[in-house]
């Protein structure tokens, strides 16, 4: 193993998580908590936005959109109230990093939320948390109460004259509510159906008002940018892909979990050094690098930096930066089917290509996995993914099309083996 660039990296996001009562205000404050907020409140909102822009922080929810720019789109002169929405609807299979923040360091999220709200001029922030995170929701509720009592939430925060309320909203359990306009609709009490864009939420968002929707981890980075400066943040990781990152590693690794490392850490290093390799020393057959919607990488493609641009160049996606490792016992048809089943189940049903295409993909993949596949089914899979991609209202259609196409292309031989042998060569005869 080569000496790594990460050896000198100092974790900031997870620094206090392992401390006893790390989720409480007392411990958080002892380690510099809410100092970032105090610093931000001494600046103008524009200065805060500028710092975040310069830091190069990109959204950690999957799309990697520059956070400062997103904040900058919110109109300055408007009579309407503005809203900050925290996207804690983490539902992508493979992703469990936001959950850790909510659970272990809720004040870090709250502080970031407040700074973001201040920057965009929001007087109210909503934390939209997925219904299954009941435990985390309780922790966050308590944290909001602590922060309110301490004067970080509510009116005239830290004597600045600026007021902001933070409200929890527990979703009903739908992946699509993590799509920002689906989240907004859900928050308004409607079906979580993504909206047509434009207009974008920065202009017409929650209750028709300017709104920013940010991922949990994104906002957790913000207090550190305030305290340590944008230069510090921008200095971590490759150019245009800066900052510390929580990598959620799962699948066939000895030590799965969340690792805080700089952006751009190599996927191989992540698996073999931090994940301590594959159990039994088995070879890596494939890695889904950033959550289920990202096209799979073959085992021989893992020598690449984990950041937005590198993975896009490699034909996949960085997504939420949460690799799922699969060893050589994994049936890739089955993996593709499980992924397709997820997206078919989570498709909101609003627009035609995704609603109909996802179910079709799922059926085609299961047919091959069951040993009933024909060669033309493989072509149909590729064609159906083409028919979905780019034709839908939101990115869920793309998110369903990419992995199915990825599996079918990268493991074409294995698909054909299923078809020719009329069985799954890896499931040992059992499919359930």
């Amino acid at each position, binding site marked *: 193993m080569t000496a790594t660039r990460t050896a000198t990296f100092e974790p900031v996001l997870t620094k206090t998580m392992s401390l006893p009562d790390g989720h409480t205000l007392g411990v958080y404050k002892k380690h510099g908590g809410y100092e970032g907020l105090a610093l931000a409140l001494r600046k103008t909102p524009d200065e805060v936005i500028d710092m975040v822009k310069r830091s190069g922080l990109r959204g950690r929810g999957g799309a990697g959109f520059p956070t400062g720019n997103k904040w900058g789109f919110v109109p300055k002169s408007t009579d309407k109230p503005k809203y900050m929405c925290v996207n804690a609807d983490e539902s992508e299979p493979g992703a469990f990093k936001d959950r850790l923040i909510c659970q272990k360091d809720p004040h870090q999220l709250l502080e970031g939320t407040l700074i973001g709200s201040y920057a965009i001029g929001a007087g109210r922030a909503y934390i939209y948390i997925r219904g299954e995170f009941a435990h985390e929701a309780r922790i966050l509720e308590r944290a909001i109460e602590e922060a309110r009592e301490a004067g970080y939430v509510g009116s005239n925060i830290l004597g600045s004259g600026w007021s902001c309320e933070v409200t929890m909203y527990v979703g009903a359990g739908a992946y699509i509510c993590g799509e920002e306009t689906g989240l907004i609709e859900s928050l308004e009490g409607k079906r979580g159906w993504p909206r047509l864009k434009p207009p974008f939420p920065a202009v017409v968002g929650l209750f028709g008002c300017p709104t920013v929707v940010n991922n949990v981890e994104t906002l957790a980075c913000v207090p550190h940018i305030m305290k340590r400066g944008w230069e510090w943040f921008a200095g971590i990781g490759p150019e245009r892909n800066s900052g510390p990152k929580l990598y959620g590693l799962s699948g066939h690794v000895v030590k799965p979990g969340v690792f805080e490392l700089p952006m751009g850490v190599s996927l191989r290093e992540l698996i073999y050094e931090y994940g301590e390799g594959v159990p039994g020393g088995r070879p890596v057959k494939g890695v889904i690098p950033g959550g289920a919607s990202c096209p799979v990488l073959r085992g021989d493609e893992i020598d690449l930096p984990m950041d937005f641009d590198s993975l896009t160049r490699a034909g996949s996606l960085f997504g939420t930066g949460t690799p799922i490792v699969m060893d050589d016992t994994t049936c890739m048809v089955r993996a593709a089917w499980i992924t397709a089943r997820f997206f078919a189940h989570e498709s909101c049903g609003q627009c*035609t290509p995704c609603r109909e295409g996802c179910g079709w993909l799922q059926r085609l993949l299961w047919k091959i996995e069951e040993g009933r596949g024909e060669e033309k089914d493989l072509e149909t899979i590729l064609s159906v993914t083409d028919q979905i991609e780019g034709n839908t209202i939101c990115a869920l259609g793309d998110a369903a099309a990419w992995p199915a196409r990825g599996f079918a292309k990268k493991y074409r031989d294995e698909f054909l083996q299923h078809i020719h042998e009329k069985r799954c060569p890896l499931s040992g005869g059992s499919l359930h």
Partner: protein
Amino acid sequence: MAAVKVKVDGREISVERGTNLIETAKLAGVFVPSFCYHPGLPVVGVCRICLCELEGRPKLVAGCATGAEEGMRVITRSEKVAAARKAVMEFLLIHHPLDCPMCDKGGECTLQDYTMLMGPSRSRFRFEKLTWPEEDVGGKLVLNKNRCILCMRCVNLCKDVAGLDEIAVLSRGEQTYIGTVDGRKIENELAGNIADICPVGALTSKDFRFKARPWELTNVPSVCQLCSKGCNIMVGYHPRRNQIARHTARTNMDVNQWWICDRGRGGFHQVHEPNRILAPSRKGDRGRVAASWQDATAEIAVALRDIIVRHGARAVGVLGSGTLTNEEQYLTRAIFRDGLGIAHVDFPRRPQKEVVYRKFTIEGDKDPNARGAELCGVTPVQNGLGVRDMVRAAAEGTIKALIFLRGGPLDLFGEPPIVSRALENVELLVVLDMLPSPVSERAHWILPGVSFAEKDGTFTNSKGRVQRIRKVLTLKGDTREDWRILQSLGQALGVYPAKDPDPERIFARLAQAIPAFSGLSYAVLGELGAPIAAATADVAVG
């Protein structure tokens, strides 16, 4: 809004900025398909069939949800667009039952039309299709979810036009379906429009289904008769059966936009009532005796003249009707008021509570032409009596002859015993009507008139808009158009010599005689009607 220059497939046109690309393309003479888009409903952009290419943009855009901007270049004839449309068509059909031969929408189904136009001719989907049982959802509609393409039009008609969340989208993914809220029945009276706008055979009209195939019907533009709003309708009739199969909404932005109410939708049933009066008759000693038109008009004229000679014109009361055409109102006035000098000329009104929906009001005045009757002067003159007083005077014996141009229910006048006495006391009771009523039962003479579908003419709605109805059916039995009956009565009485062969010529006289109608003619009215002269709009002609 400013006009912008846009190119659609190379054709440059100028449109208002923000006009969606479906409408923009239409103006440029380019067809962009659409399922979910409807000009009268909120844009949802869900079907994706209207995807268009914009020069300089990598992704296709939904034509319905994209507004025209200066210099925009829209491309609808590219491989990319064709592939996207074909994809949507294939997706929409994977669970579709393809039961066109037994589907009520067959022949006027957008999905069927587009499949013929651009759809794949065979499906690559080789799995069991999702199926759903048929469901009565109320609102005189039947829901067949197998055919539904989830365009949301029905949901948004209820939500946006009626203002009621009676239909909703439920579940998600490919299991998504349209259903009523908590399984309740749809109650709003605009629900019938859903059968018009459903682009497939998912929600069909209980009243129309299995009655006829759309291609067997001839559609004739007309005007609804069930209130004073004057909604524009299409009368779909079966020429071979000489029967109306349905009414559908006809777009008129000045009157009813795209919608009609369910009462109007079923408004043709009275035409086909089995107990229509089919021949003139007189009251004999032992029941009714059929009479020829010639005898009937001649004898009525003699009897009426006789009463006027003996008792004066004030012994005659004429009860007109707000359901007759402007032409017939004009004849009523010309013959009875002007010709015979009868002062007691009036028509009964039937006010009901209006029904107000978010974007559509069913008017409370149930007479389609009360305005026309007022304007033409079917109103009392020289201290003439109104409807109630006429009936009372007849009961007291001062009025000796009553002429009802439509019978109507007895309780219309509030006091049935008085009405009965009036009808029994008079020496001459003449009723011109389509259907038997307690009034016609006692009439000395019954003259069988016809429905709105059996004659030409015009109506004036509550807002003063004059619109045409058209004869679609051949006459039943020995019935005659009301205008023709009135005209021959006028001749027999010697007070109205003109013998016009059609209502268009009567309308020309009316337009000459009555200031409100000046300048109007059938040509001017066209398909969508025209308002009466503005200066007279609020003045009833006395």
